């Protein structure tokens, strides 16, 4: 089992009660990735959000900053909102991160759950499906190698185009990110792409039929075994003591979800629902190293995932607490998982 972290960026609370600037938030992310590498975590993902509380809008640039100060950790997007991106540019950026990190870059393409990027980059939301399907196809075409030939409707055709730099391994791993729509699991399997589930509520074990659907669709399309991989991202936070970790994180979670609820018309989470969601079986992996490793092992028995990564920096959680959680994930949770599940072998994509 690989372990990791993902973030959309956050404005950490300072000792004086204020919060850091969005520029400092970017430097905080590089610091967090560096620590994650030092404590042996295998993955760090940067999301793509365009809001003041979550300002990590340019994942590849943050990852490039981290690439030259880290050694082993894999650096990915979680997710790249592909519908409003230029796949050529996305590939160039992540191939550059791959070069600077000596082959540690990954792309997770997804739809994202917010629509800020549509007006920001001048796209029409009503073209959503067409944009996503065509751009995913183009991204995969580019990864197959130069010269690139592609026809579609969302941009001009590419004829014998050259997209550089090229990754030394030949490929940048491309995952499909999904929040649980069965069609996405089917699509990832049919395309022979590894799949990354973002599970932010409910009962994660109930994703088991989706992972099953994904594997069946991949088998039906004769996808190579190395490509058939499941990863899971959930909210989570690790503290020395379970109770105090849950208390500390509750304010951050409540704040973020209340803001989101205000925008989307749902009620703020109650402490009762939080207590249920942070208990075994729930989607919020908040607790002590023992609790979190037990819960990941339990979920693994349902989903068979090879990577689990946590979004820790909700609200305005202080950087010190964020870093401590990363440290505990590497130094305390990881050895427990390795003892239980063994070390995940490095996969070389072909």
């Amino acid at each position: 089992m690989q372990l990791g972290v993902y973030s959309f960026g956050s404005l950490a609370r300072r000792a004086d009660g204020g919060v850091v600037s969005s520029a400092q938030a970017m430097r905080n992310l590089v610091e967090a990735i560096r620590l994650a590498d030092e404590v042996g975590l295998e993955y760090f993902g940067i999301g793509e959000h365009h809001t003041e509380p979550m300002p990590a809008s340019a994942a590849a640039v943050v990852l490039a900053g981290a690439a030259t100060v880290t050694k082993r950790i894999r650096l990915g997007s979680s997710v790249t909102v592909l519908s409003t991106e230029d796949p050529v540019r996305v590939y160039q950026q992540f191939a550059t991160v791959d070069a600077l990190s000596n082959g540690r870059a990954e792309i997770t393409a997804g739809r994202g759950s917010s629509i800020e990027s549509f007006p920001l980059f001048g796209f029409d939301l009503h073209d959503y499906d067409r944009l996503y399907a065509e751009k995913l196809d183009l991204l995969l075409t580019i990864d197959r190698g130069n010269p690139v030939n592609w026809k579609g409707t969302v941009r001009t055709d590419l004829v014998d185009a050259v997209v550089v730099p090229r990754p030394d391994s030949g490929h940048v791993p491309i995952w499909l990110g999904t929040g649980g729509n069965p069609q996405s699991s089917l699509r990832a399997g049919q395309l022979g792409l590894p799949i990354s589930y973002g599970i932010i509520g409910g009962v994660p074990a109930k994703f088991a039929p989706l992972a099953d659907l994904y594997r069946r669709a991949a088998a039906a399309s004769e996808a190579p075994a190395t490509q058939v991989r499941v990863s899971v991202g959930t909210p989570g936070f690790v503290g020395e003591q379970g109770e105090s970790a849950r208390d500390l994180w509750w304010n951050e979670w409540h704040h973020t979800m209340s803001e989101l609820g205000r925008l989307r018309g749902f009620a703020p989470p109650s402490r009762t629902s939080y207590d249920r969601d942070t208990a075994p079986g729930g989607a919020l992996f908040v607790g002590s190293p023992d609790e979190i490793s037990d819960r990941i092992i339990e979920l693994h028995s349902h989903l068979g995932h090879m990577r689990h990564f946590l979004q820790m920096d909700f609200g305005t959680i202080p950087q010190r607490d964020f870093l401590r959680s990363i440290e505990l994930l590497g130094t305390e949770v990881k050895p427990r998982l390795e003892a239980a599940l063994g070390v995940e072998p490095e996969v070389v994509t072909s």
Partner: protein
Amino acid sequence: MSHSFTIGIFGAGKVGTALARLGIAAGNSVLVSGSPRHTHTQMLLDVVAPGAVEAGSAEVMVRASDLVIIAVPFAKSDEIDYGLFTGTIVVDAMNYWPAVDGVVADIERAELGNSEFIAMRNPRGRWVKSLNHLGYQELAEAAAEGTRGRLAIGLAGDDGDAKAVVSAWLDDIGFDPVDVGALADGRRLETGGAIFGRSLSRGEFALSLGLVES
């Protein structure tokens, strides 16, 4: 169970397949009409909602069903052939969600509830608004009658007989139905309302909306 329902579901996404599972568990015959853009819908159903059957066509599904449910994203609501719904009991489970779907100018101008707006596509459909106010994960927590903590589901519509059928079916699949009134009253079930997204018992639900339970 006095009657075994045949239900038809538009949409094989999160909500559609969650409802398909509940229908199958309750002994319903479940037909599903997936998006015209998608293939292999039966393979999908066999894994995530075993027992549900992909409908040969939307028309076949509507004809065969006691009630149909629209469980596609609101942004995809134009893909439905509303002409099929004349005389049919139709449950609108969609939510107009500007933060996710973008602003639809026609709705903002009309100042109608989402389901009133959708019902205008075929006024001869027997429209009931329901199942929109809980997420698909909460819907999975349906429970047998008399179970402690059984969840309430609101319904609204202008056709009393249609509502009676939908109520019986909701009870069948594991919810306590609460009639909130006419289709226009269904606005109270929409995003931003007092009960939206909340797992509530029948009593809590009625209290939150200020309804007097008979």
